[in-house]
């Protein structure tokens, strides 16, 4: 078996509890949202709720609870993956494994990103399915586009957790963490109507993509023993 699979298994042991925990919360939130929607449809009538959801000022953002769920998943996975090793200095042992350091750090980050992608895919697919059962495409498509930004936030947060955790210098850690939090506000936008910020998706996606290799910089500095 290739060493990368051993590395993935090591990471899986650390993160599985966080992954399943947040996945249960994510699925629970999706069901909770649609129980609420169906309840409102029962109370207000379908036509009343449709008008209320589309044209109220501001319109009802019935999926608002989902905003912080990808963030929660990224924080739980990122912290469970990096915090124990960094806090107990075991990361240096990991760096002495018979794998290139860059491959090792990139492998850890890749594992985390794949796990987050899996989480996002499950929660988003479940939400989109339930949404398409209740509403026409004119609603579901803009809603999905708005949700994408919140789900992209998970990648940004995870990358910055990894980037900050591996950084050996405390001041730099603080600076990275602050930058990550400040830019995060661009992802967790307030939605004034369904479909808001859909045009910003390419830029948000590009930023999330650009943040992926950042962890290599911290890994490189850690390996060199920078202070």
């Amino acid at each position, binding site marked *: 078996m290739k060493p990368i699979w051993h590395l993935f298994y090591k990471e899986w042991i650390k993160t599985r509890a966080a992954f399943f925990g947040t996945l249960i919360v994510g699925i629970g939130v999706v069901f909770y949202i649609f129980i609420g929607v169906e309840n409102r449809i029962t109370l207000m009538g379908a036509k009343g709720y449709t008008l209320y959801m589309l044209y109220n000022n501001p319109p009802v953002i019935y999926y608002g609870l989902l905003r912080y769920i990808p963030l929660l998943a990224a924080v739980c996975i990122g912290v469970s993956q990096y915090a124990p090793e960094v806090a107990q200095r075991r990361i240096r042992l990991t760096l002495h494994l018979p794998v290139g350091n*860059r491959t090792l750090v990139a492998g850890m980050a890749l594992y985390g990103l794949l796990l987050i992608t899996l989480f996002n895919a499950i929660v988003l697919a479940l939400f989109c399915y339930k949404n398409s*059962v209740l509403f*026409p495409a004119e609603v579901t498509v803009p809603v999905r586009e708005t949700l994408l930004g919140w789900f992209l936030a998970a990648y940004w947060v995870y990358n910055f957790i990894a980037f900050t955790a591996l950084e050996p210098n405390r001041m730099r850690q603080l600076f990275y963490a602050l930058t990550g939090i400040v830019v995060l506000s661009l992802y967790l936008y307030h939605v004034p109507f369904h479909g808001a910020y859909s045009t910003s998706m390419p830029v948000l996606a590009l*930023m999330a993509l650009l943040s992926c290799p950042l962890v290599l910089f911290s890994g490189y500095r850690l390996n060199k023993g920078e202070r």
Partner: protein
Amino acid sequence: MAKIVRFLLILITIFTLSFYLPSLYQRTVEKRPLKTMIYFSEVSHDFVIARESIDSTTQEAAMLYYDTRGNLLTETEYMQLLPFNNRRKLKLMGLMPDSLDGVALTTDVLKNVKRSMLVADRSFSYGLAPLFESAPERVGVSLPDDIFRIGKRGIEFIDCTTGEILPEKSARFAQAMQAAGFEAPARDIYGIPSVIKRWDSGYFITDRNGRLFHLMMAKGAPYCRHIETGFEIKNIKCHTDEEIFCHIFDTDNRLYVLTTDYRLLPLPIEIPSGRCFMTSNDFFRTYKTSEKDTSILFALDPSFGFVARHAEKIDHYDDTREAAWERHLFPFATMKTPGYAHFIPLPNPVRDFCIVNLMCFLVWAAVKLYKRRSFKRPENMGDAIVILLTGIYGLIAVWLFPNRK
């Protein structure tokens, strides 16, 4: 690899700084602008200007009122000149005139004041709307059980409860629209999708070719009519009004009005900014717009004939010394666009920054010289280009992430 990652870090830092630094600067230095407002008096048929001034002794702001010749008016004179704006106060003071130009100022006349914001840019539309009954047996507007969309297959009514298309109603309306010359799909649907209105006037819909149609449902039957425009439509603002259906913007931000007898009238006003505020009463209609540092008010008569125009210079942040400094300091800013067009990074190109960019570069070069570093190394040349292009952002980013061997 470390060099590539460093470059990515610099890019992210520049983006972050360009988003937060200019807004932080503006929030720190910006002062509240003094208000200047223009009104058109139904009494004198002339403009009245309300200007906020700072009292030099007490440093307190107070509103001062002038006519167009610059004569100072008392607050009472100002209120008497604008009876529609100050209806309640004038009545309490016993100064409300009984009639104006021979027209009795009854409660109905005084309350018939309409105000609306007109914006040329199209805001987000779902392409889904409820088609109300425009000729109901009972007064008012009631919500139908379905909503409609106009896709490639023509108009489709969707039952809100089941989510299924109503074939009979859809076919009936699609046939009527085709007979009027409508070619699906709709480019845009404009209307007031709300039951909080006095009556329903239907929807104004542009078809695939951009031609304008009026769609209504009268006693359950479709009513569709083509309206010849002769220009390309940019946006439509609908009203619930006895005299007009809507205001229409063309692609050059010229404004037209469509009356309820289907006359399309070009308005004798210019709105380059594409935003204006309309006020109307039984005597006059006014359209207020603003350019960079000027507020302009157009007064029209009830039949949209030109009456007068007045412009006043307004206090604006862009004219201040702080704004000039901002243009010098920051080569660009990334911002969220206000209102309903949400793009995140819109570069806001401002000029006058070349000197500061050059100064940043010289500071960086001086430090490099002091430390006896070579300029010929590719990473240093890259840093120099970044600083020359992005000025203060680049300098901060390059110093935060220094080159290491």
